[in-house]
């Protein structure tokens, strides 16, 4: 096996293998979203019950898989010199990134699937425009992956761990996911609405709503996420260091 696609596939398998047996990563990508579905779907903490909770938890799944988990894993690969060694093998940078992208996508998809099935078990009835929801979720994945790689490629591994977890918690609590920006004071709500987490949560909420009321919000979500994705990708491309 030595074609470019075969190497990328081998690296996808390698990333998945390491990721799926790492306790901290599993906690982030699966356990926390499951606990949140149960907590938010069966309580009145989020108005709207399980229907309102699922888009928010899906946002958290994407944030956990594509940002926090990816950043931490890549940061520690840099520190261990593993990426430096791989750069001397036939694995090209494109193979490595493709492998990481597929592994991250597969894990995030699994997390989204688990959250969705659990939501259905709790009474969530998926509706709305699915292609739009998938498109927005994909854009969210790209956005958070770009920022995760930027973080992992610029800071020390320990700092990546601290910042990635800190940002994860901060965005869940104050980034427009759990608390809708419209429920916050005007000025604060306006600022938070421009965070990628808020844009993704709002976009998924609108896309999965059987009676969408705010098409402008959907467009705004797409624009905000695209801006963050492009900025993150440019920064990652410019500042990412492999060792």
């Amino acid at each position, binding site marked *: 096996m030595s074609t470019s696609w075969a190497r990328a596939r081998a690296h996808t*398998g390698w990333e998945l293998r390491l990721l799926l047996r790492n306790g901290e990563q599993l906690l982030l990508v699966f356990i926390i979203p499951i606990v949140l579905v149960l907590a938010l779907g069966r309580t009145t903490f989020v108005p709207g019950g399980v229907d309102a909770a699922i888009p928010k938890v899906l946002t958290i799944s994407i944030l956990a898989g594509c940002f926090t988990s990816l950043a931490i894993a890549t940061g*520690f690969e840099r520190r261990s010199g593993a990426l430096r*060694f791989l750069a001397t093998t036939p694995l090209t940078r494109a193979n490595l990134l493709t492998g990481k992208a597929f592994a991250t996508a597969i894990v995030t998809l699994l997390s989204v699937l688990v959250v969705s099935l659990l939501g259905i078990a709790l009474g969530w009835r998926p509706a709305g425009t699915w292609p739009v929801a998938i498109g927005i979720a994909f854009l969210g994945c790209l956005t958070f992956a770009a920022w995760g790689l930027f973080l992992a490629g610029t800071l020390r591994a320990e700092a990546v761990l601290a910042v990635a977890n800190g940002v994860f918690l901060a965005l869940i609590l104050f980034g427009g996911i759990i608390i809708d920006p419209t429920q916050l004071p005007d000025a604060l709500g306006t600022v938070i609405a421009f965070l990628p987490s808020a844009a993704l949560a709002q976009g998924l909420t609108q896309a999965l709503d059987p009676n969408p009321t705010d098409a402008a919000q959907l467009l705004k979500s797409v624009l905000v996420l695209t801006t963050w994705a492009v900025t993150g990708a440019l920064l990652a491309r410019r500042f990412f260091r492999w060792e």
Partner: protein
Amino acid sequence: MTTPALWVSDLWVTYGTTRAVAGVSFTVAAGQITALVGPNGAGKTSTVEVCTGLRCATSGKVELFGGPPRKLAGRTRIGVMLQIGGLYPTARPLEWLTYLAKLYPDPADPSTLLSNLGIDPKTSVTTRRLSGGEQQRVKLAAALLPKPELLFLDEPTAGLDPAARLDLLGALRRLGAEGTGIILTTHALGDVEEIADDVLVLVGGHLVASGPVVDLIGAGGSTSFRATAGLELGALAGALGSGYQVQENRPGNYLITGPTTPQLLADITNWCAAAGVQATEIRAGGRTLEDIVVEATRNEIAASEIAEAADS
């Protein structure tokens, strides 16, 4: 003419205003074991990084099997063992090598390779829990996995116990005999004398000495011995007669420059007996690589100081 495995011409590497490598040129042929030696900061790692495609040269030209080192074609034909890092801490040795094997067109069998290097292929221990010596052996296995035509080894014997070190040196000698070119970067100069064909001495980014090991350590018409530090050099020189210079090039290491003759050896031992000095490691007709590196380092430092004084 056969294309050399590695061809380096007038290589320069600078980091900002710091010059790491300054105009180094050399070639490595198939089956040749070449050692890259020198003090810390000599430019060895930078040179190897450019040759393995990890870093771009500031100027100069490097060809790996006739092409740029970053090209995929070259990377399938080399094996690299890094001094620091290069393992996934949470991976088990066999799964790491099995994954790497999928990247190469004709890899060695990972289980056999690990077994040959004394690592149990079935071990469930992750690499971060292996001892330093075991980690070295897993890294070596990863370097040998592609059945490389050119092997880059950075301090391969670091952390190995004496028996494992001898095994490794024997294995490298066999690889060289089978046609694998080897670039060995190390501070273990005794290992270099044992297995290397050629040696490149880098100091301050400059190639200050190079050539076959036997020529380098045999050159200069010198004899050395070890004894208590601080012997009276004038008295010793007087006992040896004219035509000989004596210096203590390292504490307790005496280097006598001049023709090596049976009479010289007799004069040294006679003087030591008369002075009540126990001489050890008398080495006739040559210097050690350590002598050469130490001397080259001092010369380079002296030259830098003269240049700095001239600039100011």
